[in-house]
């Protein structure tokens, strides 16, 4: 029973991170029909920029409270990633808006390589220890079940950000313009919407969420690295497809479900395979799910339509 609860908590934590990343994929897909494969690398840039900022702050103000330091590092990471998201759209994707859909997809993969290589040049090839500024000593709410303050923070912050995003998209004027643009760029522009600005904003919001996810991811595992965005990026993409790509609620649901499946899978994979595979094979669950969804329910859990818009 303790193991079950423990796996649930672990799954919820990593699922919240996947959900935040998945939102970036799904928002951009919803508005442009583009899978931005460089999105995972924005997460990596966020984590490394936060790390760099923390190092800098520790150098100039060693006595600073860890939480303030984390807040500043997070803010810097978000701003840099928002600029990055904006630049990516402006320089790489905008001119391909009317190109055959393979062109922006391949460009996205190119942007991903570019970001990883630049990060490798700036921060080197080594794994960096990510400072644990939120206490990591586990609490024991139930005997045998451990939760760290970092994990609690991750779940709470994710929930707040996701609620904020839903409010923005569903309840505000700019959110209405985003939904209108997602449905029909041309008619949205006939309503006076500057669709280029709305699309840029979509990239910027997605990048900000990825920055937060990157800091969470690095805080949870205690490391950062130029290639760290690849796997969570791919899994969050899976989560977005699982929930129904283009659908915000779907990305959230897909992220959490994927996190739980992965966590339970990792916990029980040895039993399931009679000891043949151990928990280091946990990554296969995400991709088994991706395969199953694409075969049996390509529209995802909450998706109603298969969009074939370019």
């Amino acid at each position, binding site marked *: 029973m303790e193991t079950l609860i423990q796996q649930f908590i672990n799954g919820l934590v990593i699922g919240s991170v996947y959900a935040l990343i998945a939102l970036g994929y799904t928002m951009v897909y919803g508005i442009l029909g583009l899978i931005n494969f460089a999105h995972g690398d924005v997460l990596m840039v966020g984590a490394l920029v936060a790390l760099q900022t923390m190092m800098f702050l520790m150098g100039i103000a060693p006595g600073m409270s860890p939480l303030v330091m984390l807040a500043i590092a997070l803010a810097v990471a978000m701003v840099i990633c928002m600029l990055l998201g904006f630049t990516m759209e402006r320089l790489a994707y905008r001119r391909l808006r009317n190109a055959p859909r393979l062109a922006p997809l391949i460009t996205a993969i190119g942007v991903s390589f570019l970001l990883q290589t630049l990060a490798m040049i700036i921060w080197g090839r080594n794994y960096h220890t990510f400072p644990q500024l939120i206490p990591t000593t586990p609490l024991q709410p139930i005997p045998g079940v451990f939760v760290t303050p970092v994990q609690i923070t991750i779940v709470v912050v994710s929930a707040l950000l996701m609620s904020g995003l839903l409010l923005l998209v569903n309840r505000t004027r700019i959110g*209405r*313009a985003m*939904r209108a643009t997602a*449905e029909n760029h*041309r008619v*949205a522009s*006939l*309503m006076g919407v500057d669709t280029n600005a709305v699309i840029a904003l979509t990239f910027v919001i997605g990048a900000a969420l990825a920055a937060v996810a990157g800091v969470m991811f690095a805080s949870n595992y205690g490391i950062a690295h130029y290639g760290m965005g690849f796997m969570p990026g791919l899994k969050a993409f899976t989560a977005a497809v699982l929930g129904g790509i283009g659908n915000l609620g779907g990305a959230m649901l897909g992220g959490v479900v994927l996190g739980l499946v992965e966590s339970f899978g990792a916990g029980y994979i040895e039993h399931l395979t009679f000891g043949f595979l151990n928990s280091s094979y946990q990554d296969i669950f995400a991709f088994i799910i991706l395969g199953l969804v694409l075969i049996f329910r390509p529209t995802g859990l909450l998706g109603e339509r298969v969009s074939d818009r370019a």
Partner: protein
Amino acid sequence: MHTEQGSPLLRLQGLKIAYGGIQAVKGIDLELRAGETVCLIGANGAGKTTTLNAIAGVLPIAGGDIEYRGERINALPAHRRLRAGIALVPEGRGIFTRLTVEENLRMGAYSRNDAAAIEADLERVYTMLPRVKERLPQVAGTLSGGEQQMVAIGRALLSRPRLLLLDEPSMGLAPLVVEKIFEVVQSVAREGVTILLVEQNANLALEFAQRGYVMESGRITLTGTGGALLQDPKVRAAYLGEDA
């Protein structure tokens, strides 16, 4: 042809539009004075919709000039043309099917920030289109074609246009519904909004409009008052289904 009633609101001069490699509009001249109702009729593929889209700014032009209120707006993006008072009700209505009816209407007022006046205008649209008011919280994709056309027109009105471009408002609708829609358009015209109407239904269009232009394969071949065009044997033969 020039009745001195102030300078024209809209003037197209030698307008050319290329569309997918072919020249869809081959240099047309057209003029609209403030407060006029004018129609553009012609067969399928004559370039009518293309012309409206270019005026609204969602299609680039290949040559010539679009002048609006005395200024060339050739390169002005669509969203800024709406702010300047040009609203297009596009062919096929262009309803946002996943937004509610109310959200669709509010999209029309997107570029405005006079909240109180927007609410007042919404109320006016509701009185003009009572059927729409009953359906405000409904997702717009569930509406009938006629109701969608009403929403599309109401939405355009919420931008407080000076120039309203209507592309085939009667398309696919039952005669009774078409009559309703033209009553609404008529009342809009009476409030002083200038209207450029594109219609396949030439009879309807010429009866509604003060003046008309006839378009054929990307060129304007005839122009005159609605009444004169209705009597014109060539028009009657080509568009009103009579033998010449």
